[in-house]
């Protein structure tokens, strides 16, 4: 016990400290969300008033709709892109290491950089549209960044560029860990490559798929810096996201109580994703134990 003390200390002290931080600040935020705090935290009780006013605000409604659209489109498309990249890389091609690094590289770039670079690329006056026009195709249009109905898709594009490499890396690891005997058996039975992927390899990947979905979803819910740099919620307020609303309420409008309420709503959305995942993990483990 004494001999292992340093090990216990290294693991448990930071773990307890961060858990205590997380829990105490979450509880504190929940408390603030029920107070009339504006510039600074004050005590007092306003019941659900902060929540009703956040839920009734146009900003939050737009942010919530955007989150549904952005969250599902981003998760689905980054999943598909990542899977396709992984399957292509899995063909034992030359230069795999180089390609893998290239696809993973965006992950190392900060979201602010991604957002800023894409804000120039997607700007119709100076970016891709301008380039194509200069090549002579003058009727070409790609102005989603300034189109309030399509602007949310520019965030999807940038987010996919940033993080499909991450999905690819996980899928690639999954593909590589498929039992070689299984593949040989399928080959002997005469399965072609398409059938092999569909029937033999992909079904073994679904635990990884769920992990990727959950990780990407919680990223989507907390997206802040990317939107801030790319559209800053615009045109107008068309690309608001919940994290932007929280920051705006707390620090720009000096409405701490309402900002805290919006933050708690975000936490609830996050729990709606994480709790089913935890339940699923629990059931999985039980099934394995029973089998």
């Amino acid at each position, binding site marked *: 016990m004494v001999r292992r003390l340093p090990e216990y200390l290294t693991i448990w002290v930071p773990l307890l400290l961060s858990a205590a931080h997380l829990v105490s600040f979450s509880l504190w935020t929940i408390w603030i969300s029920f107070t009339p705090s504006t510039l600074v935290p004050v005590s007092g009780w306003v019941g659900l008033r902060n929540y009703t006013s956040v839920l*009734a605000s146009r900003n939050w409604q737009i942010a919530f709709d955007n989150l549904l659209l952005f969250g599902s489109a981003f998760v689905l498309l980054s999943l598909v892109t990542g899977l396709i990249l992984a399957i292509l890389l899995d063909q034992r091609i030359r230069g795999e290491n180089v390609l893998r690094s290239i696809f993973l590289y965006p992950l190392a770039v900060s979201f602010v950089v991604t957002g800023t670079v894409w*804000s120039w690329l997607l*700007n119709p006056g100076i970016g891709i549209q301008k380039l194509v026009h200069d090549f002579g195709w003058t009727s070409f249009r790609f102005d989603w*960044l300034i189109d309030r109905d399509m602007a949310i898709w520019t965030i999807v594009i940038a987010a996919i560029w940033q993080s499909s490499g991450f999905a690819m890396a996980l899928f690639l690891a999954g593909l590589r860990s498929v039992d070689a005997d299984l593949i040989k058996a399928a080959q002997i039975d005469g399965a072609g490559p398409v059938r092999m992927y569909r029937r033999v390899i992909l079904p073994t990947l679904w635990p990884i798929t769920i992990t990727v979905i959950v990780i990407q979803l919680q990223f989507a819910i907390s997206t802040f810096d990317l939107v801030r740099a790319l559209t*800053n919620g615009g*045109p107008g307020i068309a690309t608001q996201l919940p994290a932007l609303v929280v920051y705006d309420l707390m620090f720009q409008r000096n*409405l701490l109580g309402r900002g805290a309420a919006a933050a708690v709503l975000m936490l609830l959305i996050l729990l709606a994703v994480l709790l089913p995942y935890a339940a699923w993990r629990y059931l999985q483990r039980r099934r394995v134990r029973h089998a």
Partner: protein
Amino acid sequence: MPMITRRRLLAGSAAALALPAFARAQSAIKPRLTAISQWSAGSDGAAITALGKKFEEKGGVWQHSPVPGFTTEMMNKLRAQIMAGDPPACSQLKGPEIAAWSKIAPTVNLDELVAAAGYEKFVAPDLAKLHKPGGKWIALPLQIYSTNMLFLSKRAMDKAKADKIPVTWADFNGLAEKMKAGGVAYPIANGGTRPDDGQKFEAALAGISPAAYRAAIMNLDKKALEGPEVRAAFVQVRKIADWMDPNVGAQHFSTNLKRFVDGDMGMMIMGGWAQGVLRNAGFKFEDFMIAPGPSDNGKSVFLLNADAFIFWQRKEPDLQAGQALMAQLVMDPAIQTMYSQITGSIPVRTDVDLSGEGWSDGQRRTAAALKDAIASNQAVLSVAHNMAQENGLTAALIDVITEYVKNKTIKPEQAVTRLAEAVESAR
């Protein structure tokens, strides 16, 4: 921490509050000032550093901690310090936020210092009111910008074969049409940020009717908010929006300056600070003209934006002496001249003579416009730059305006209703 005896405390308070005693106390205590602001770089940083030098020349200890970035970052630092019970002796803060923040921590009563300097009669009345919530001076304005200056591109004027500076909105619209016909791609140069859009609206409404602006935006009078002038302002804003480059996205106005000077864009409604930005970008005074924003009654309308310092109560005698010294410096015409000449703003004092060296024509015209506007009661507070309302209400108003600018399917009538609703729900 130095021991603070009651006697020293009394001496310090006396030094800070009673000006006649100030000179005597100064020899006993070395004035010290802790200050925070967001001004760290560029002309803003240079100006406050110069102010610090003056403070040191007067025998003070200058301890300025800049918090670079957005104003909100500076406010977060201020909030943290106040909550920890350790506010700076003085900090940057402006507009109605002075009143809001003064409720969360005790501030210094500067009445005697202001009276001794005979300062109040040289300050625009609406501006003075912001710095004395509850009737007492607790903050001092430092410099003034107008947010509705009209910048005209010389080359675009040549293309339009025009040489007259527009006075009313009708003149303005006529000139924009002429520019369009003369081959100027976008008669209006504009960024895509929230204050940018807000400035177009406030310039429109105040230019149409300063009285309606005062009632609707500054006093939030329901009838005025739903009145015909606000509707007319939204109609004007739509015209302006139609003349802007839709491709700006969320970019800063400075992105367009080259196209503006080249004559691809014609006019820019922007704060006086754009002069400094244009000059820093290497453009010459011959490239553009500066005039007060359009006003339908022909008299200057001035949308005020002013930076200020608020003074937080401290017990330390040296800090109190520092606060008194700082207040005197900020009110001093020579210091205001020095500061504005560095940043490109105009002095708060209306009695400073701008005819001499070191001032630009734009600054002279701005100062003249302010004087005229005060005389005709047409100096009003900018909403786009957080002078007319507290941040929360401002943001609610700008939400409506920025959406209207970017979404051309919203009718002016709808915008009027939404603006009134936004006020109602943000209150």
